[in-house]
């Protein structure tokens, strides 16, 4: 019948160990469903970092405030794409908005996403940039002038009163933005955590673990982008800002690590029926992605590096190198975390008697190349946004909006 699909499945049959229900041979949630929580995690994390500035008035991180917001937005815009590409019927995807089944966590996607995009992120960016884009537009030519004026909704009021109003609104939005960011990524964790049929997923801790690993990856991403873009602009890296961000990254990694360790210990101690097949899963199929990449390289090593930085005095250049390597490892580790949850949860049978395998395609909608493209696309969007809404003091001679 359907030759390409079934060809692949015949291949997979050879890799099955033990007993799986016959319908379980196909792994349904592929790498695209790994990419989605990774992306929304970055959104939530970058936003949390930005909110540190506004809500807790952490002055050192001020210079990356706008970058964090733009990063969050560019990743948020790409977030629905992996889901759309993965659906069996993307042409009917509007049904989630039109006829949501309110008992389903997945149905919340449409509303949470729309809320976060429209009411939180777009509004915050708009109010933050409004004064600047009006002032920039005054000295520009077509097409930038038109773009900026349209983005400002043709507003012209830059009086003290209006600017004070803007700042108040931004603070208010950030305050509701933090729980919204928690919701945006927490509900993804709930989608997995509420499936009682799957003991690898079914856990109260799942939304929390997802959230904290999201915060870790988001902060790490902003650090990474900051360290790459700043030299491009031929500007010096602000070490105070970098150290502060790394501090927050450190605290987030500690909490994330503790939560995952707790989950692990709890499972082993309770020793429920599924522990046998899950142990086999972790030791055989997930040994590299979980043991080596997620835990060793993605968490323990960066943790060790950051502890060393706190204990010993390293000079700026060494710290920069260590931070750079750590954040890359952390990104790999968090991606591996998502992989282990999503793919790992499907690699063992619900009969608790067997393991199957995931053969990732290279090409095709659900292939590796598409996933890589979806991970690179937000960076391209970010580059465009930086051109239109520069997050730093622009080359133009205009006052920068500081608090």
């Amino acid at each position: 019948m359907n030759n390409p699909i079934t060809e692949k499945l015949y291949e997979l049959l050879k890799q099955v160990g033990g007993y799986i229900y016959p319908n379980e041979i196909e792994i349904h949630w592929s790498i695209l469903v790994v990419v989605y929580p990774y992306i929304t995690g970055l959104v939530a994390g970058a936003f949390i970092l930005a909110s540190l500035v506004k809500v807790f008035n952490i002055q050192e991180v001020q210079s990356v405030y706008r970058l964090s917001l733009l990063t969050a937005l560019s990743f948020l815009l790409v977030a629905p794409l992996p889901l759309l590409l993965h659906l069996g019927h993307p042409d009917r995807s509007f049904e989630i908005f039109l006829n949501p089944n309110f008992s389903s966590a997945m149905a919340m996607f449409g509303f949470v996403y729309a809320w976060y995009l429209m009411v939180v992120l777009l509004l915050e960016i708009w109010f933050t940039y409004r004064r600047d884009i009006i002032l920039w537009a005054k000295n520009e030519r077509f097409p930038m002038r038109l773009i900026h004026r349209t983005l400002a909704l043709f507003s012209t009021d830059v009086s003290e009163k209006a600017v004070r109003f803007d700042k108040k609104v931004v603070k208010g939005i950030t305050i509701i933005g933090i729980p919204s960011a928690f919701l945006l990524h927490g509900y993804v964790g709930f989608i997995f955590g509420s499936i009682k049929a799957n003991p690898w997923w079914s856990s109260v801790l799942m939304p929390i673990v997802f959230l904290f690993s999201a915060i870790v990856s988001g902060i790490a991403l902003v650090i990474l982008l900051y360290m790459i873009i700043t030299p491009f602009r031929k500007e010096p890296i602000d070490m105070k800002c970098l150290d502060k961000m790394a501090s927050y990254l450190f605290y987030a990694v500690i909490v994330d690590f503790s939560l995952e360790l707790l989950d692990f210990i709890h499972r082993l101690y309770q020793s429920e029926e599924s522990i046998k097949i899950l142990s086999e899963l972790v030791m055989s199929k997930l040994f590299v992605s979980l043991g080596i990449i997620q835990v060793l390289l993605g968490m323990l090593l960066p943790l060790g590096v950051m502890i060393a930085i706190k204990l010993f005095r390293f000079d700026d250049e060494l710290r920069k190198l260590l931070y750079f390597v750590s954040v890359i490892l952390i990104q790999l580790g968090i991606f591996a975390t998502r992989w282990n949850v999503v793919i790992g949860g499907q690699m063992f049978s619900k009969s608790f008697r067997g393991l199957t395998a995931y053969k990732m395609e290279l090409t095709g909608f659900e292939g590796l190349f598409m996933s890589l493209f979806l991970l690179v696309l937000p960076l391209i969007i970010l580059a465009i946004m930086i051109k239109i809404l520069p997050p730093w003091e622009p080359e133009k001679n205009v006052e920068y909006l500081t608090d």
Partner: protein
Amino acid sequence: MMKFLPHLPEQLVRLLVVFGVLVAGMFFVRSMLPPELKDTSIHIQSTLDREAARPVHYAGSEACADCHEEYTIKKGGYHKNLSCETCHGAAKEHTENPAEVKPNVPRLREFCVRCHTFDPSRPTGFPQINPVVHNPLKPCASCHNPHDPKPPTVPQECQACHAEIARMKAVSRHVLLDCTTCHNAPNGHKISPRVVKASIPTDRDFCGKCHGSGAQMKEAPKIDLTSHGEKYLCWQCHYPHQPGLD
């Protein structure tokens, strides 16, 4: 917000207008959509209609009786509870067009062997044969009428239905014992096996006839009936069809 009501800032007004247009646009689009897309009860009803309207391929055993009475009446014996389509395949098309569409008539050995070959997972009492030695190459129908499959000779041995037990016993220490040594199967058992049951021994002394201290049979290992095994019956510990392995 109350502080701002008397005089809303200009940028907020612009924003509200944009949001208002978007929201109004959404409601407008929703109202323009056809009802199937919005109303749950319509889609439930259409699903029920669609499912109920799917084509039927198996006619059901009652449908065959209309034309093929002789088989349904004569289908006595061990196959009487089988549906005609179990062997003859889907026959709905045949009931609609009896002259041109004929159901399959299985005549090859593999067909009967599929149910009746020996398999250790099959329940005790289900007639099983070893297709390699049981009249090889002969079509099953030459001795067994599929609509009344009495075997041509009444099975002399219990093995025909109790294959698993016979095979176990054949490699055990009790291999030389006939089934009838311990079990008494009245003739009715071969006709109505679930109604007329074969007998099983009821007390320790039965096994003691060979295994008791003063018993005749020299080869049988001897035990002291009064002390061995406390109050248990022999077969609560020793599986009689395979006593050696326990």
